[in-house]
């Protein structure tokens, strides 16, 4: 299903999606984030600071609550997410591809009921990048495209005054169907314009990982390379790179206690981060990844080697967030290039 939407009618489309809670990028204190739609939506954002991964994988998820009277068995109450279906507008293609990767992780081996419930309730309306939205974009290097539709339900392309709206999935079609005649049939010129724009978009200069295909093997060969410590020399061990990453999925599980007699609390999942020292630290103090170098290697190899070995795709979508926001200039493009070049 391919349609045309007048830019001015975007709000009308959102308004008729009454079965859905709609989200769109909005700026607050100079931070772009997906927020519940309130008022006019203008999809002129660069990219959101955080990817939309939190829709299906929120930073905090309550698994269940427990209550235990002393001497009795605990009572557990499962807390599966509930609520209206949700749709996010303005999702960039790199983040769409991020969703594909998250889906793989949370369905691998066994289904994660919390992720699945949220994910099944979620639709992503994408927006093609006619131009790179950041100087650190490199989606093309990792098999993506600024106009790609992986992981999206709908892909919109900004034609100037109008959006070209293409359904990608059945959910996407459903969303478009609700719009009724707000969505018009595209003209030939529209299609041509789309084609031109898409061609221009993929021709835009981007940063580049030179040998992403060769990366898994080369990284594997470079496990013991001294380059890792060297490249991580400036790393301060914060969580920006992973917390802003559209594909990082690591988490921690903790009990949050709210009462002691009777014992009350929740078992909670929170995002965790492979760059934090205690991520792998044993209680004994032994740490399989004791240095910033080892932890940088884990992050990079996870994305460009381990994930590839397990799922046949890179776990990086080239959004460039980890590069732009790294406080000390650690640059995954540079790191991968450097290590792979060094591996020959």
């Amino acid at each position, binding site marked *: 299903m391919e349609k045309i939407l007048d830019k001015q009618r975007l709000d009308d489309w959102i308004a008729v999606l009454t079965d859905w809670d709609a989200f769109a990028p909005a700026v607050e204190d100079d931070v772009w984030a997906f927020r519940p739609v309130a008022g006019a939506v203008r999809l002129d954002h660069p990219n959101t600071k955080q990817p939309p991964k939190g829709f299906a994988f929120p930073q905090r998820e309550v698994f269940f609550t427990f209550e235990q009277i002393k001497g009795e068995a605990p009572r557990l109450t499962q807390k599966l997410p509930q609520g209206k279906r949700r749709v996010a507008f303005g999702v960039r293609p790199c983040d769409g591809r991020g969703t594909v990767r998250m889906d793989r992780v949370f369905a691998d081996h066994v289904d994660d009921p919390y992720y699945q419930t949220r994910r099944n309730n979620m639709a992503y309306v994408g927006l093609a990048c006619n131009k790179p939205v950041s100087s650190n974009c490199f989606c093309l290097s990792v098999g993506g495209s600024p106009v790609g539709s992986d992981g999206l339900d709908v892909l919109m392309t900004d034609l100037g005054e109008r959006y070209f709206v293409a359904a990608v999935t059945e959910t996407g079609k459903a969303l478009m169907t609700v719009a009724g005649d707000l969505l018009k049939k595209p003209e030939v010129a529209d299609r041509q314009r789309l084609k031109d724009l898409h061609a221009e978009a993929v021709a835009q200069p981007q940063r580049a990982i030179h040998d992403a295909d060769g990366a898994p093997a080369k990284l594997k060969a470079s496990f013991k390379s001294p380059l890792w410590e060297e490249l991580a020399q400036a790393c301060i061990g914060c969580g920006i790179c992973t*917390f802003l990453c559209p594909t990082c999925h690591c988490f921690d599980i*903790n009990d949050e206690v709210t009462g002691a007699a009777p014992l009350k609390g929740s078992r909670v999942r929170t995002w965790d981060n492979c760059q934090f020292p205690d991520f792998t630290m044993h209680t004994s103090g032994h740490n399989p990844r004791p240095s910033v170098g080892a932890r940088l290697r884990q992050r990079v190899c996870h994305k460009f080697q381990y994930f590839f070995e397990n799922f046949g795709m890179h776990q990086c979508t080239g959004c460039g967030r980890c590069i732009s926001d790294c406080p000390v200039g650690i640059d995954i493009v540079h790191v991968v290039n450097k290590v792979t070049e060094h591996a020959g």
Partner: protein
Amino acid sequence: MIDVQSIRDAARDLLTRGEVRAVIGYRRGSRGMLAEPVTITDPEQADELVWDATCFHNLALYLVEDRKALAHAQRTPTLPIAIIAKGCDARAIVVLMQEHYFKRDEVYIIGVSCEGGGVLVEYKLARLLNGAQALSAVFDGDELVVTTAAGEVRLPASEVMADRCLECREPFPKEHNVAFGEDKTGRQLAAPFTALGRFEALSAVDRWAFWRRQFERCIRCFACRSVCPMCYCDECVVDSITFPVAPDTTAEEKANRIRWIERSAVRSENITYHMTRAMHLAGRCIDCGECERVCPVNIPLRLLNNKMELEARERFGYEPGASIGGPSLVASFRDDDPGQFIR
């Protein structure tokens, strides 16, 4: 204007003469024109060093990292380590020495004056350049010289500088072994605590509305803490992401680490984290502003730290980073400390 070659020469000489074991400085990074921190040990590398308006980082952090690495390796070096320090960085080094984190003779401070400049803010520059890509940016007097593909542009320094630099009164590293550039101590491009003053003029309701938004946005990536040279604790009391285990660490201690806050990045926990951090930085924060710069979600953390700095100065006559020998703010008192708030 600082001649970067003089810095390179100094670094090279120190390494060549074997006076220091390494030099912590800046080099050109891989993303655009931005500088990045580097530690060089080979005199040959000295020519990589740069000095420009993107030398944001407070390199004192890497002195801390160096100490940690040495402690971990149980090594006592015979040579000092050299560091390139701006005015604020040098104050941080003073605080670290005040807290005995290392001794004066273990550091060789290559001070570089910010003179009329400081560091730039990327978004301010981008706005002024209207989409042109800057290739380099160096302060010259009260101007920023920017090169773009189209040529050289000169912009008023004050329009691209970070707030912390505008409000800086000590752009010259007082504590140094060698210093480059003019001592412009006392320079005041903006009144101190301008941003804080503006904020404090708000009503309590507005202040809360503001902070509520900020604290709800925090994702607890800990970049503010990780980038701070004063946050050198081996384990953060308020939200630990590591724990030091010594031979005498008991199972009891490991089992019963207090969880003042939960890992959930929700408002209540975030606010407790940030307030505790501000308290722990009271009298120690030297306003390098790095926490605010690195925050990915733009929480104006300087306000919190500035508030403590202002109170320390006005109520207790205390200037963080002013002297190596003095007592710490919260470990000392004066008879005439304010007490009117006590009933």
